[in-house]
């Protein structure tokens, strides 16, 4: 949920655009990270854990914990918390460790 009115802060949401998570359109604003935009849209599972296939989401939000890894345009292990959302970007749940040279699966 996005906060509209805040007693101290102003959130400038100048440019609105759409990217995709698991092929579903997600609304985002310029300057938002993938993680912020997904959570604003009520999506909080970003990947499945390696052994137990547990749902995992954001934990630290500052690039330290690696809980929020997603696949972006075919590239695995992208930290959703530090990566800005871009128009048309295709984000997917990361379900494994990622494969070297996975780029050919992109787009």
């Amino acid at each position, binding site marked *: 949920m996005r906060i509209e009115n805040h007693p101290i802060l102003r959130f400038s949401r100048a440019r609105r655009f759409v990217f995709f998570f698991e092929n579903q359109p997600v609304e985002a604003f310029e300057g938002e990270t993938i993680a912020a935009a997904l959570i604003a849209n009520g999506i909080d599972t970003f990947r499945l854990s390696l052994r137990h296939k547990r749902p995992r989401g*954001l934990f*630290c939000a500052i690039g330290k914990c690696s809980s929020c890894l997603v696949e972006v345009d075919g590239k695995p292990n992208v930290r959703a918390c530090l990566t800005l959302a871009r128009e048309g970007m295709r984000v997917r749940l990361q379900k494994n460790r990622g494969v070297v040279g996975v780029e050919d699966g992109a787009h």
Partner: protein
Amino acid sequence: MKMEHIERPELLIIGGGPAGLSAAIVASNHGVRTLLVDEGVKLGGQLVKQTHKFFGDEEFYASKRGFEIADILVDEVKRSPNVLTLTQTSVIGIYEDAVGVYDRTKEKVFSILPGYILVAAGASERFLSFPGNDLPGIYGAGAVQTLVNQYGVLPGKRFLIVGSGNIGLILAYQLYQAGADVVAIVEITDRIGGYEVHAAKVKRLGIPVLTNHTLVRAIGQERVRGAVIAKVDEHYSPIPSTERELVVDVICLAVGLVPSVELVMQAGAELIYVNELGGYVPRRDFRMRTTVDNLFVAGDLAGIEEATTAMIEGKIAALTIVEELRNLDLSEEIERLQKKLSIFRSGPTSEKVRRGLEKMGIHYEGVSFQNVKQTPGLEHKLKPVIECFQPIPCNPCETSCPTGAIVVGDNINNPPKIDYEKCTGCGICAISCPGLAIFMIQEDYTGNRSLIGVPYEFLPLPQKGDVVLALDRDGNIVSNAVVEKVIKSKNLTNLVYISIDRDLAHSVRQIVMPESKPASYVCRCEDVTVEDVMRAIDAGFTDYEELRRYLRIGMGPCGGRTCSSLALNLLTRKTGRSPYELRPQISRPPIFPVPFASLKGGEEDEG
């Protein structure tokens, strides 16, 4: 030239938080070619997500809000000719011969050969083990601050916070500001860990801080749906019979931070385990130099503390590097900053840090402070009542006072003293106080009413004439209050002056708009609340018939079936008269609504 600056900086600073930014400014001022690298999308480190006013002294931006301090520092760095900054750029390793850097926007790795390195990489959230601790919806407290205050995104509606240190307390207040519900803060020890003034802010909003309690497990399959908490015994083990379930959708872990030491470790610096500083920390000297000659540290990575000391440490490290690079003697400025640090760290809230630093041979002297509890008297006068009794390093009350009435003194840990003769009652101290611990009070206002000015940082802002709810220090609603005036402040800590019964002048410390707490209704038909009835009884309507005529209780379609017993009950409680003495209401037909037409014996033809 830019390539040279990036590839061969005289000083590489890793981390653009308060420590790194302060160091960059100092280095640039002395002409040192500095490269500052930060992983985030924005410089400022964790300052960017802090909405509260900071403690400390003016030189280090006390009374400014965290994100404002970030803006000031970043502006200065941007204006510094000798600093180049790279954001969205991660240092991936310190190798023997070079520093590896990854530019995420270009997806390119390159290497840097710096003369000196200052690592100010901060800290990461401490994790906690409990069943279900990996579920989405469980966040580090800092992560929730990032989402809420940097991006304006609430990850849920009902929050549980684990840990009552400053971060947990501040987060609770920030969530309330953002319009979320904080169900509770649980604290495993028997006392609140953070500053008393932070705790007071949270308590008077009615947010429970449950000491001797812990989180037992998270509830939920695919995400957090709730939490089980319990009391703990003297060994901090949960007592099963005290378990209870809370319906929450976010659990915030505010159980401490761990210094991010990976890079200094790779550079070969010696680490030592110092529990009081957050775990493994680099061994370093007074000048912030590690055991590797050209490698310095500052800020949380050097030991978990706070922003002011991080800024000072960053400056000391940078000055030392400048001395060596330029063959200068800057000891005078370094001494001055060292003195600031030692004063800052002399209070009881720095006791743990002092103990930790002692373990690497760095000694700071603790000082004892006198407890000041002033009873102002002067009941005819509007004056500040300062409820700041714990020595904390902070003095904006002193520096903001235009008449010099408030004195903290040389050691900023001193609790403030006020000379009420010099005070003009302007209220600037109440607006400036980072702890929101100053209230404006005039006991003799009008008749038997007192005037109280409370600092207020929420939406909506009440207006003159509004009736608001007055809360005591524990967040209990004790009365209604009338808003007499509202002083809007540039720094967004507004002062709302209310009038209340005189005997409540020393207990009311918070107001809330009536909408934000649901009322208790007596009469559903006419929307009459318990508050309305109590006020009417106070005003002299002490009989059911009087109340009925005044408030319309029992005059709605239900004919009093729902409300009359509740109203009689309140009358009994308030006046002490037994229901035997009170007359029930008179019932008149019809006892439920019927159409007029039906009274005339059925439907009537139009024509």
